[in-house]
């Protein structure tokens, strides 16, 4: 019985790491970057975060002269057979300990929320842990910094892609605004990309006519120009990377007055 209780209490002490992770997961890009570092991520989340939170709470408790009976908890964790359980004495101490854990879980979530804000504003976590990969750098525009020069990365409004894909019939050039991209599970290998307002262009030369050949039947004639760009029906186009030959990236910036942004008609 005591052994099970010890395991339960240990789990309680680790719970701030879970609430922290759930809060961090709300930021999709950070979640994606961290998931590619599964081992490192688990180690630091399940060690550093609970330790940090427990230290902060204990320091606050010291300041306000609040005590949690850790000797009691330690006896339970160790499953000390000489330790006698008395419900009357144990009740308030257990409630205090559970309240302590609840506070730790809450602070884990708050810490995760703060980390998200720091990541969104300054990419703090990505820089601190060296998160990122070639696709992330390319799609975020960090690739513009590759020469070490100052760049206009912060000016990027949209990322426009030309994606050359191979189908059974022909090579098709899909163009559109990149809205999302997905990695393969536990990998930084790109799985598929999502384009909005996509257009497609068949790169086959347009067929013109069959003309009778002098000796052998007929001969086909093709236009020198390839097909025009046609809008793809639907709002989003999902392109699996297995069909992609190459991607051309263009970072776009608009000159539009700030006050006109919210007035764009549907």
């Amino acid at each position: 019985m005591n052994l099970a209780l010890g395991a339960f209490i240990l789990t309680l002490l680790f719970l701030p790491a879970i609430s922290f992770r759930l809060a961090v997961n709300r930021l999709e890009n950070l979640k994606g970057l961290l998931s590619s570092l599964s081992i490192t991520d688990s180690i630091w989340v399940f060690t550093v975060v609970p330790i940090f939170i427990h230290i902060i709470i204990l320091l606050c408790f010291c300041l306000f002269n609040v005590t949690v009976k850790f000797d009691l908890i330690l006896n339970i964790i160790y499953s000390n057979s000489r330790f006698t359980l008395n419900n009357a004495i144990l009740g308030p101490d257990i409630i205090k300990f559970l309240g302590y854990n609840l506070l730790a879980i809450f602070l884990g979530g708050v810490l995760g929320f703060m980390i998200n804000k720091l990541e969104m504003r300054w990419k703090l976590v990505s820089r601190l842990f060296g998160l990122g990969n070639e696709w992330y750098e390319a799609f975020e525009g960090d690739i513009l910094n590759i020469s070490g020069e100052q760049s206009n990365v912060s000016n990027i409004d949209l990322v426009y892609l030309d994606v050359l894909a191979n189908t059974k019939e022909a090579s098709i050039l899909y163009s559109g605004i990149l809205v999302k991209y997905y990695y393969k599970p536990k990998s930084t290998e790109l799985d598929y990309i999502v384009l909005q307002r996509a257009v497609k262009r068949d790169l086959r030369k347009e067929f013109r006519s069959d003309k009778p050949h002098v000796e052998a039947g007929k001969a086909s004639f093709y236009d020198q120009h390839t097909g025009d760009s046609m809008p793809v029906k639907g709002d989003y186009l999902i392109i699996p990377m297995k069909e992609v030959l190459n991607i051309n990236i263009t970072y776009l910036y608009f000159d539009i007055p700030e006050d006109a942004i919210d007035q764009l008609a549907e």
Partner: protein
Amino acid sequence: MKAKISKKGTAFLKSTQASNALIAAVVNNFKQLSNGVAIPFHVAINDGRSQRDLEVRVRKVTSM
């Protein structure tokens, strides 16, 4: 992963006419755009009382 989209970009993607005009401007003038030329195109602006056209310029972002 969410792609890099600014506040302006989000507003454009929400507006069908604006994003269609943008795509048309980019697709039809891609060579000029690649050379760093700002491409003008028109979007409809609705200020609650009236609707008017606004010229917007799109250009590519490069390293300085």
